[in-house]
């Protein structure tokens, strides 16, 4: 396998403080250099991305007095993909008095991540979670409340306490609107300059430091250079490498990948989360998959017919002919087992030929019992908008007929490698939110991405970036700086190439084929043979792309095909690295399931002696061997155990 990569020196997180875990964040904040308020306005920060992680950081750094320039590819910062999160956000408030605590949230997250995340980071995330809820309520986020006027909570995927705060099925929307409004307030105050419909296409590195970006104005096609003392990427996840996913159509890896090519290490790219409750594919025109919030698993029961090819209307299948397989296999957690387990179990029953719906790729999620127990109005109040959404998409009424669901790609735990300060391996380049790799290990628990995005943006980055900025302002740069010129030229050349190939396949046709390869070989279950095949096929397809893609129109106009082409080009390179990472990790952990590494009853089997590390990859050249740097993981607080949800 070593022909696919080279092993380099191990790396360490130099910023992680030592000592008792509860004191580490305080310690780091105390040791970080501060910037005097009067000096802040002389320091500038570029923030790419306006999702929870980006908007919160831009607002907070703007409030602190830094000069912030913010970018997003949509027409408004409010449309970042965080808007689509449905279920909720975790926080260790223990408002329920049900035994929750910062330590328990920490413990659950480390265990849920299958012992592939850093204890220090996760502990900090749990500590900060408490402040996030306070902050959001103060901004006017209308969380669900009880009749007494206090906040309501629910329990969410894989945990036994109620610590999830929610705003009906639109939690991400409400949190993002809160952050967006705080951001717009700073735009009005003049501390944040906002560039919408701008896509970052290159990072500018000068003297080893991240000093700016090259962006394309998506309306005029103008290639611009922007400079700052530090650059923050909050550009979200790369699930769209699979073409079909629950991500928004524009979600991409370009910003991260461009930074990776400039020297930022990419960590654990193969860790992807496949969400168990999505609406199944209905045809080959399908452009995206829609998630049904996993909160549905609190009251819905998942089942398939006991026998394959049972063609009866589900309502007519009697209890004794149904297999509530999650309740049967995992009696303690039942329908609430973590996502990776629920997803693989669904795949298994479908592989056995017991799947339902078109192509046999679906399982039932049934609310008949819940409606009997709680009454229809209560079910409606809790899940009404999700049921409506389901009905709109499928044309079926889930109050009457059980929903059909199937797993879909949802979240990427991997991302750019960052230290405890959220700084990447390029000084001055910080990465927040789903774009970094830091807190979820090999599997993310439900309602923890929103928590992480806001933790990073409101509370972590604003307390760490100052340590770096305190040495600024750095030398003034402009578009004639050689590194900037070179970066802008490279962007122009790539665009020219894409427009001049004039082949005969559309960008989407390439993207779909790439996605299928990834789903088949680097999806829910992976094995050596398949991954090797995938790498070969990705390389062939990438070559064909650069010979045969067809992108019409010009650069100097709104050109959506051109935008997509650039993103798909980067997905090809990422896809190869994902497969190499998946291949080298000859163990199963969290969302990464290697068929060769399972227990007797088919559960993921980790190999801690060999693989308890973060795999941080260094870019060399397209199609050439990347270099693997291992960051060893140590567990001082949570004892490493094989996960068991039995």
């Amino acid at each position: 396998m070593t022909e696919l990569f080279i092993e380099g020196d191990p790396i360490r997180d130099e910023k992680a403080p030592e000592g008792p875990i509860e004191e580490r964040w305080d310690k780091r904040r105390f040791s970080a250099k501060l910037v005097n308020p009067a000096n802040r306005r002389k320091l500038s920060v570029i923030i790419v991305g306006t999702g929870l992680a980006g908007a919160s950081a831009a607002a907070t750094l703007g409030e602190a007095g830094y000069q912030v320039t913010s970018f997003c590819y949509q027409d408004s910062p409010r449309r970042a993909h965080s808007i689509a999160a449905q279920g909720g956000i975790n926080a260790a408030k223990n408002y329920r008095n049900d035994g929750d605590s910062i330590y328990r949230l920490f413990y659950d997250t480390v265990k849920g991540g299958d012992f592939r995340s850093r204890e220090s980071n996760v502990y900090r995330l749990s500590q900060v979670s408490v402040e996030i809820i306070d902050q959001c309520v103060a901004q006017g986020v209308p969380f669900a409340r009880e009749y007494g006027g206090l906040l309501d909570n629910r329990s969410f995927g894989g945990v036994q306490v109620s610590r999830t705060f929610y705003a009906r099925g639109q939690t991400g929307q409400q949190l993002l609107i809160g952050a967006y409004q705080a951001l717009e307030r700073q735009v009005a105050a003049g501390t944040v300059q906002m560039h919408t419909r701008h896509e970052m296409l290159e990072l500018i590195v000068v003297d080893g430091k991240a000093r700016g970006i090259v962006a394309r104005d998506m309306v005029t096609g103008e290639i611009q250079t922007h400079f700052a003392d530090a650059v923050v990427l909050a550009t979200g996840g790369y699930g769209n490498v699979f073409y079909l996913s629950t991500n928004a159509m524009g979600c991409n890896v370009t910003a991260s990948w461009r930074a990776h090519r400039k020297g930022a290490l990419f960590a654990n790219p193969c860790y992807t989360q496949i969400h168990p409750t999505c609406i199944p594919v209905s045809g080959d025109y399908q452009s995206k998959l829609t998630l049904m919030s996993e909160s549905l698993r609190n009251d819905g029961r998942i089942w398939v017919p006991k026998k394959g090819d049972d063609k009866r209307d589900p309502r007519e299948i009697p209890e004794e002919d149904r297999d509530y397989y999650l309740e049967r296999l995992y009696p303690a957690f039942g329908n609430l087992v973590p996502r990776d387990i629920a997803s693989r179990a669904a795949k298994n029953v479908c592989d056995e030929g017991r799947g339902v719906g078109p192509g046999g790729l679906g399982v039932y999620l049934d609310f008949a019992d819940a409606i009997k127990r709680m009454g229809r109005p209560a079910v409606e109040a809790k899940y009404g908008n999700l049921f409506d959404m389901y009905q709109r998409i499928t044309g079926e009424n889930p109050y009457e007929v059980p929903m059909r669901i199937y797993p879909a790609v949802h979240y990427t735990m991997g991302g750019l490698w960052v230290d405890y300060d959220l700084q990447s391996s390029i000084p001055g380049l910080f990465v927040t939110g789903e774009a970094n790799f830091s807190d979820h290990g090999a599997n993310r628990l439900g309602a923890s991405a929103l928590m992480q995005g806001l933790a990073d943006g409101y509370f972590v980055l604003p307390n760490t970036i100052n340590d770096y900025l305190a040495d600024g302002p750095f030398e003034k740069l402009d578009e004639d700086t050689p590194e900037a010129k070179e970066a802008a030229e490279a962007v122009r050349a790539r665009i020219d190439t894409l427009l001049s190939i004039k082949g005969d396949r559309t960008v989407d046709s390439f993207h779909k084929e790439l996605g299928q390869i990834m789903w088949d070989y680097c999806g829910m279950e992976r094995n050596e043979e398949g991954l090797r095949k995938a790498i070969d096929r990705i390389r062939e397809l990438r070559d064909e792309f650069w010979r045969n893609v067809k992108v019409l129109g010009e650069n100097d106009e709104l050109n959506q095909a051109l935008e997509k082409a650039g993103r798909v080009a980067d997905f090809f390179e990422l896809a190869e690295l994902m497969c190499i990472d998946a291949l080298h990790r000859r163990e199963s952990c969290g969302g990464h399931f290697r068929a060769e590494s399972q227990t007797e009853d088919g559960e993921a089997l980790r190999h801690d002696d060999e693989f308890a590390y973060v795999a941080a990859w260094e870019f060399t050249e397209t199609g050439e061997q990347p270099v693997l740097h291992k960051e060893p993981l140590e567990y001082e607080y949570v004892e490493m155990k094989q996960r068991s949800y039995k």
Partner: protein
Amino acid sequence: MNITLRVWRQKGRDDKGRMVTYKVEDVSPDMSFLEMLDVLNEKLTLEDEDPVAFDHDCREGICGACGVVIDGVAHGPETTTTCQLHMRSFSDGDVITVEPWRAKAFPVVKDLVVDRSAFDRIIQAGGYISAPTGTAPDAHAMPVPKTDADRAFDAATCIGCGACVAACPNASGMLFTAAKVTHLGMLPQGQPEREARVVNMLNQHDEEDFGGCTNIGECAAVCPKGIPLDTISQLNRDLLGSLASGKAE
């Protein structure tokens, strides 16, 4: 099914624009409207014709990016977003007209894409609660009656799509503005800035060339999030209160 589309094509902001007719064959009733446009664009590309530009992102009805006027109705026949409209709402042989939002405040960028940045500027004028990071009291320090919280939530579900403006004969942005005024005005945290907020947001609204509101109600009829018309009454009450107190800036 087979569909005939009449689509607005406009190269850029200053181009005149025109309707162009296309045929789309083998449309499945389970396709979303945007997936049908994807199919059209694949076909146009292979025929060396510029694909139709339209805004979209989440395709789940929540980001507010999508939105076109279909047969004269903003977001089409089903009170939902364009991305959540499915072809089962149409019939074989239909001729469907597709146009961009038309409003002075929303200039066309290309084809079906318009510039809605005026909405962001209305928010900048006061659509927020000033709560700098780190200053918040415990979330339970101030209980909020459930009915108020629910009403705030209902108003806060506005996705900023702009259909209300496209539907309004005056191209008014009042429902959007009122939704925000209501969301923040229903919450105790929103009270200190309440009087200034409504005046500042309305001033910005007028500066952006949105028309005035004459209570026609077309906005609420097309709003995919069901923002009720009575938010506009609340806005008007807040405005009167604000003017009476003389506290607005």
